[in-house]
């Protein structure tokens, strides 16, 4: 049976460095995916992953298990992505309109997608998700792409389940409008 995240934390706290390798093996992909979908930039997402794993390594000794590890690591990634967003907004204000447009294309280009055939569709979907207000985007990404239930998302965000559900509904409605042409 696979050890739980909490088992691995406990082994790491006892000095077992291989437990951290097992944690990275398990969380590498989800962290990168989440950060890519929240920042819209693969390189930014890699930076976020690096910082999230570093915080994990440095914080695990003090991890007391009051929340589940998964809740904790998702919170870390969300906070790092929110900080990045603020930084990007500050940078954006310094640029004139023409550069901002080019930067927008560049961001989507950098996000990258698997299927060349569906590349254009994927770009449109990515653009629609990235254009959601941050609160709605976080819920949509966690629910749809990470398959987390509303109660788990509520715990991560520290919000009531009803709030999470209404953000999801609002997020889907906005996406529906923006993606209407693709659904036909």
């Amino acid at each position, binding site marked *: 049976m696979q050890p739980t995240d909490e088992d691995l934390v406990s082994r790491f706290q*006892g*000095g*077992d*460095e291989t437990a*951290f*390798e097992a*944690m*990275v*093996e398990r969380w*590498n*992909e989800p962290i*990168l*995916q989440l950060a*890519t*979908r929240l920042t819209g930039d*693969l390189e930014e997402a890699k930076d976020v*992953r*690096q910082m999230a*794993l*570093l915080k994990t*390594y*440095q914080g695990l*000794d003090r991890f007391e298990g009051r929340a589940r590890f998964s809740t904790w690591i998702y919170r870390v990634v969300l906070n790092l992505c929110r900080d990045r967003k603020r930084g990007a907004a500050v940078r954006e*204000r*310094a640029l*004139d309109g023409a550069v901002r447009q080019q930067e927008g294309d560049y961001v989507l280009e950098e*996000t*990258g*997608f*698997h*299927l060349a055939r*569906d590349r254009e*569709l*994927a770009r449109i*979907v*990515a653009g629609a*998700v990235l254009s959601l207000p941050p609160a709605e985007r976080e819920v*949509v990404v966690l*629910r*749809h*792409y990470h398959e987390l*239930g*509303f*109660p788990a998302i509520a715990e991560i965000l520290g919000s009531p*389940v*009803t709030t999470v*559900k*209404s953000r*999801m*509904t609002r997020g*889907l*409605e906005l*996406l*529906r409008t923006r*993606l209407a042409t*693709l*659904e036909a």
Partner: protein
Amino acid sequence: MTPTLPPDDLVPDCGRVRNELAALVYGELAPDTRAALERHLEGCAACSDERAALEDTRRVLALWQTPAASEDPRELARSIAAQARPAARPAPRRARLLRWSALLSGAAAAALFVLSVLSAQVRLDQGRFELSFGLPGARPAPAALVAEDDWRDEVRTIASQAGSQAALQEVTLRTASLEQSQAESFQRVTQMTREELLRLAQAVDSALAQKQESFDARLQRLGEEARQADLENQRALTQLASYLPVSRPR
């Protein structure tokens, strides 16, 4: 499951149904709540259309796939650990000691290899072990031992714990060789009792801790210098920005 509608509410109104549609589309409703919603949807074209639209949106969202992580997770974990360790985590002392004793009692050759990597000299003087570290030797050494893969990784960890980048590089360069003096030490270690091995482990542990402390101090100093440089850069950027036209509020 998030039951929010009472089971006896057979025909919820449109407003309440809309609030639950996302949960319905993502399969998060308790069976009785779901049944109540379905009953409403059967008789309400507007809500039914809304549900179909959200399900279409859900399908379209699946088109966005992000690139898979390309890095080897074990390598990533080691680089994170190496990055974090000088500033944050000397492994728990007991754990380090246990690891050393395991290495020594399990494979004395491994321990000697570690000492070789760190260019450590072991002297046995009146029943006490003394360790000293020198710069990694430049002299080519005669081939004596070949490291096994499983503990080579352990050696990397310990070497990085000792805070020496040079030592880390030496792991690769010197896996197959020991210096003559260390070969003699090896002979001595193989003849040690368990008690002697544990004392050697303690000596090694203590020496590594000292090395770690001096490395930490150096790192802190470098960090302070980097912060100063950063401040100066920021001052220069602020000055530069003052020459630029003020951007219009958006």
